[in-house]
């Protein structure tokens, strides 16, 4: 299977800051890559390099087989970008914004108008179509921005934190949209700080932290790589919690975490589930919940980076103190 995007050893520095520190990425045609990382990890910088907006200091990347630096113009004929911050012309109406893009892409006036109308309807902006974009709400601007990146029916779409700041309903709608684009054969590179979002949408996840890709794989693979499944047991009675802790702790070989009556511990061997049931039964403990589940991506991130997602700054501070 061929790769729509290939990046090797991308480096980008801003003075003292190394935004990208040797990033390798490969996105198969027609799939979704979720670039998952906390604030400041280098997601936007990576997207900007792949969208020909920034030239890397080292390394190279191809999009649709074209080099993003030498063949930038050809790459631009393939891509659509919805940046982290909406980039619409606030002085133009919704229709005019889309018309502008269509005309710039060489569409006839009629084709551009038809495409604008179609997209405005799709993104529920018909009522606001002839209002200046500066009167739009944040969510409307986002939708218009996304519509603008789809005018030319790009084969590749970059979405930089598309759901940050959206309400849960809009987020679900956007997920639906991404899925339908992928069903139509579009390759998507999506950056996100939300582990659930990457899990939901991505065929493959690349975890990025401090300008480096620290893990890649399918969501399930990634979880398997960490080896962690999670055993969760909740007794019916508060008084049984210590007994549960001791049984789970003994079988899992690590000290369990306790949250209220819920006792959890990472386990590697799923065969110990029957043993847990038997031992608790022997002890006369009544259980209301018993589960063996895959670790959440949050737990994956924690075990990969040593700090929870979104807490780089804190980690940086600690490093600063240690150095």
């Amino acid at each position: 299977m061929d790769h729509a995007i290939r990046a090797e050893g991308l480096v980008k520095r801003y003075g003292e800051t190394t935004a990208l520190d040797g990033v390798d990425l490969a996105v198969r045609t027609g799939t979704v890559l979720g670039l998952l990382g906390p604030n400041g990890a280098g997601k936007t910088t990576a997207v900007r390099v792949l969208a020909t907006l920034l030239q890397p200091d080292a390394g190279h990347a191809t999009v649709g087989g074209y080099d993003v630096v030498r063949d930038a113009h050809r790459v631009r004929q393939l891509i659509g970008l919805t940046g982290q911050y909406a980039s619409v012309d606030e002085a133009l109406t919704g229709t005019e914004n889309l018309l502008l893009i269509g005309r710039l892409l060489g569409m006839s006036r009629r084709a551009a108008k038809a495409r604008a109308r179609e997209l405005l309807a799709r993104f529920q902006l018909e009522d606001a179509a002839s209002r200046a974009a500066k009167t739009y709400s944040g969510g409307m601007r986002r939708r218009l921005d996304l519509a603008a990146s789809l005018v030319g029916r790009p084969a590749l779409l970059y979405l930089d934190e598309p759901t940050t700041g959206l309400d849960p309903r809009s987020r679900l709608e956007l997920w639906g949209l991404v899925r339908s684009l992928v069903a139509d054969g579009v390759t998507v590179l999506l950056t996100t700080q939300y582990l659930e979002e990457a899990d939901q949408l991505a065929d493959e996840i690349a975890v990025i932290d401090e300008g480096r890709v620290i893990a890649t794989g399918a969501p399930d693979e990634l979880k398997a790589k960490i080896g962690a499944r999670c055993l969760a047991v909740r007794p019916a009675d508060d008084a049984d919690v210590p007994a549960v802790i001791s049984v789970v702790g003994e079988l899992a070989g690590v000290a369990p975490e306790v949250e209220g009556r819920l006792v959890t511990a990472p386990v590697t061997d799923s065969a110990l589930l029957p043993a847990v049931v038997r031992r608790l039964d022997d002890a006369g403990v009544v259980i209301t919940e018993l589960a063996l589940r895959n670790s959440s991506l949050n737990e994956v991130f924690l075990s990969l980076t040593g700090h929870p997602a979104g807490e780089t700054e804190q980690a940086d501070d600690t490093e600063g103190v240690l150095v």
Partner: protein
Amino acid sequence: MTAASVTANAPATPESAARVGPIEGLRQTATLAWRTLVQIKHNPWELGDFSFQPIMFVLLFTYVFGGAISGSTGAYLTFALPGIIVMNMLFVTMYVGMGLNTDLTKGVFDRLRTLPLARWAPLAGRITADLVKQAWSIVLLLGVGAILGFRIGTSVVELLAAVGLILVFALAFSWVSVLVGVLAADPEKVQIFGMTALFPITFVSNVFVPIETMPGWLQAFVNVNPVTLLADASRGLMVGGPVAGPVIGSLLWATAIAAVFGPVSVWAFKRRV
């Protein structure tokens, strides 16, 4: 947001072009110029800025200072209007920088750069739109002047030559505006620059007051001020009087400004984006 028809079933054209042809580039420039002009529709104060403001200047200077400076308002209008047109041209060039800065700070420029456009089209689009605004204000000022008693003392050909010269200078001076637009943190800063730099330059010229009334040390500066030269050239071509010297001086200034600020602006621009 069911996206059934937000499809991308047509992948990119197999033989994509390596670069944009000049005709296509000009078409893109026209589209981008349209975009700059159509927003006046939603932002009518901008029209006011380059229409009512210069008219107000004409009225104020003609009726408040005219009598004192030239003896009669009609005589003063004939003296001052060509220079007021020049001054207004300089202020209108600031829209290039303000628009450019808005595009840079609001991310519109990023969107444009992800499209397969000629590299020069976005800038050329702005400058084309600016020239349309310039032509509009010149016609407007001449019209208002005619109503108030300004009379062309030369021929239509010379009048058109004056307008052409002013537009050529506007084109050169746009590079200053581009540089300010690229360097400024936000559009308001561009406007502040316009006010603080252009007011002294235009007032320390012979636009409003004959040069003989000024102290000698100031005359030395006023005499080489490009605004003076361009105002003199415009007066010569519209009203009558010496033409060759001021026209050559204006063109030399325009060339020098473009030669210095053109490359510097392009360099600063590439650094910023």
